[in-house]
């Protein structure tokens, strides 16, 4: 008995670390190695590749954000780009018109997005399913409509020019010095960390319970609404965080920067990979985000043909997204990597697994 306790204590640190990356001990060094490799990547790749990697990073963060709502709560949100837009516009206005520093502006913008998340969660309190999907879509149109028309605040259709580059201690990010790449890499790692911490906790279990059966969750004493609200606020903040980097990355944004296509792309990412899984978000964004560029590359192989016979990759990309949605739902609704977890259920600390799980 004493021996076991001793063993437990020594394992404690590695177990806790392992909890972040699922239990396998080899996973930790492998993960660190992967991060080092990812850090070295911009040194060897072209700017074109780097740009695409950054876009994948943005969509990965957005995917993680939507995953809180669609993956763990089980509600389809069609307006997720609204938070992305709010984050981007708020940081741009705070750094240009209000003349604030970049990081204070980021903090304020992320908080604002959290507030909008809260607002959306409350406004959709009594609905679920398609009703909720349509309300989130209306939320997106509402936000974009206000951004387009409130000239005094958002510059209306003109948009915001000359957004200052993001910087850290006066060191301005550019594509060349890889600043945006490292920043979005850090955000992706942060999203992974926060998701891992969340789903391993009481909140995560409660959220999954709400997704599987709201009624049973209520009967088990879980306040559905609390967890819904937490998920929405977190999702809003994370998407807003991505937006605060996207605005200086683009340098110019207007109301057309954020579209319904973007909302659907985020949804397609987590459907393809597997909603409610972290691997799914990563794999989904690696497949979906560069699809436009891949199509463009494929089509340019046939450039001996006259241009009017060649399909427009921008448009066909969206048809493919639609097809992915329909086909995935038909053949593999849980996504490529989704489905039942093959790992043992981890009992909360303090409960012996043998006693608890039989």
């Amino acid at each position, binding site marked *: 008995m004493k021996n076991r306790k001793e063993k437990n204590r020594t394992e404690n640190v590695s177990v806790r670390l392992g909890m972040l990356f699922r239990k396998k001990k080899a996973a930790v060094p492998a993960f660190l190695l992967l991060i080092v490799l990812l850090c070295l990547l911009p040194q060897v790749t072209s700017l074109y590749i780097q740009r695409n990697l950054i876009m994948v990073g943005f969509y990965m963060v957005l995917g993680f954000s939507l995953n809180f709502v669609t993956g763990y709560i089980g509600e389809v949100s069609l307006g997720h780009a609204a938070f992305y837009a709010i984050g981007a516009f708020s940081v741009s206005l705070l750094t240009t018109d209000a003349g604030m520093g970049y990081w204070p502006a980021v903090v304020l913008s992320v908080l604002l997005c959290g507030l909008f998340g809260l607002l959306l969660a409350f406004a959709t309190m009594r609905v679920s399913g*398609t*009703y909720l999907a349509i*309300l989130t*879509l209306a939320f997106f149109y509402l936000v974009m409509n206000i951004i387009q028309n409130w000239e005094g605040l958002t510059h209306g259709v003109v948009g915001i020019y000359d957004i200052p580059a993001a910087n850290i201690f006066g060191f301005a990010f550019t594509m060349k010095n890889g600043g945006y790449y490292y920043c979005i890499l850090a955000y992706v790692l942060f999203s992974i960390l926060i998701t891992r911490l969340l789903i391993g906790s009481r909140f995560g279990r409660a959220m999954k319970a709400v997704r599987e059966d709201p009624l049973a969750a209520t009967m088990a004493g879980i306040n559905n609404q609390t967890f819904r609200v937490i998920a929405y606020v977190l999702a809003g903040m994370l998407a807003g965080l991505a937006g605060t980097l996207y605005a200086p990355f683009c340098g110019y944004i207007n109301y057309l920067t954020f579209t319904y296509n973007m909302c659907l792309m985020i949804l397609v990412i987590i459907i393809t990979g597997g909603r409610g899984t972290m691997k799914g978000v990563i794999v989904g964004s690696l497949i979906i985000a560069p699809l436009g560029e891949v199509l463009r590359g494929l089509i340019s192989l046939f450039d001996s043909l006259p241009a009017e016979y060649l399909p427009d990759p921008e448009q066909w990309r*969206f*048809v493919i997204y639609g097809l992915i*949605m329909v086909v995935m739902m038909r053949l593999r*609704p849980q996504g490529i990597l989704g489905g039942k977890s093959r790992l043992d259920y981890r009992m909360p600390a303090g409960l012996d697994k043998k006693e608890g799980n039989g």
Partner: protein
Amino acid sequence: MFLEQIVNGIAIGMSYALVAVGYSMVFGVLRLINFSHSAVFTFGAFAVWVGVEMLHLNVFLAILAGVAITGVLGIGLNKMALEPLRKKGETGMPALITTIGMSYIIINVLTIVFGSQMRRFPALFNWGQIHIFGAAIGWQQVMIALACLVLLVTLSLIVNKTKSGLAMRAVQQQPTAAAINGINVNHVITFVFFLGAASAAIAGTLVAAYYQYVRPSFGDVIGLKAFAAAVLGGIGSLPGAVLGGLIVGVVESLAVFALGSTYIDLVAYLVMFAVLLIRPTGLLGRKGIKKV
């Protein structure tokens, strides 16, 4: 001016009602909001546009052909995408995402084929104006409202007086019991999709004639407003859809009158949020319908 806005509101509101009925009917039998309904609406308007402007058919013939083709599209949607899911017992989120995907495919194929720019749509009832109480009211608006009214009455006769309508109502109440009594549930669902798509096509034609243009993104906002109407009236209820459509249309027109046209689209969305927050069953909705 005031009266004109009211008439405008009624005309556009009746068109919303016609789209809203499509949402309601499908919801009635499947307990599913057909998210692709707004795409079907746009498809219908384009089908008629092709007939009139490209093939130079007679307007009446073009509408008939466009409506028939759109009805077939509705059946195809059900047979190809939704029926296999029902057979696997996958309703709920997979069905919702499938309809989102189908709507996305339809809209983007339309964009590829016709381009995203506005196309001029013929004004169908360009017969000038009538003057009542000092207000100049276009025949266009009056005829659109009347056409919608005739169609809505026809639909309600189909639902309430025919044998197929009886089957529809039976499936609506209890699909299993209906099947035991010899009703082919799949046929009923197919018929509902046909009716919904056909009425969406007619509504699409009328709305396109009202605004005198059509383009692929045309149905997005109108679909959303029609949904707001369906929700306001109470989803699953035919008179509710009409009432909701009229309220949304008239309130919107009056909002233009009072606030200007900048924020017009916001009115319908705010109405929708308010209804779903305060009274999710809508004005004429029955209690006990579980919103899944």
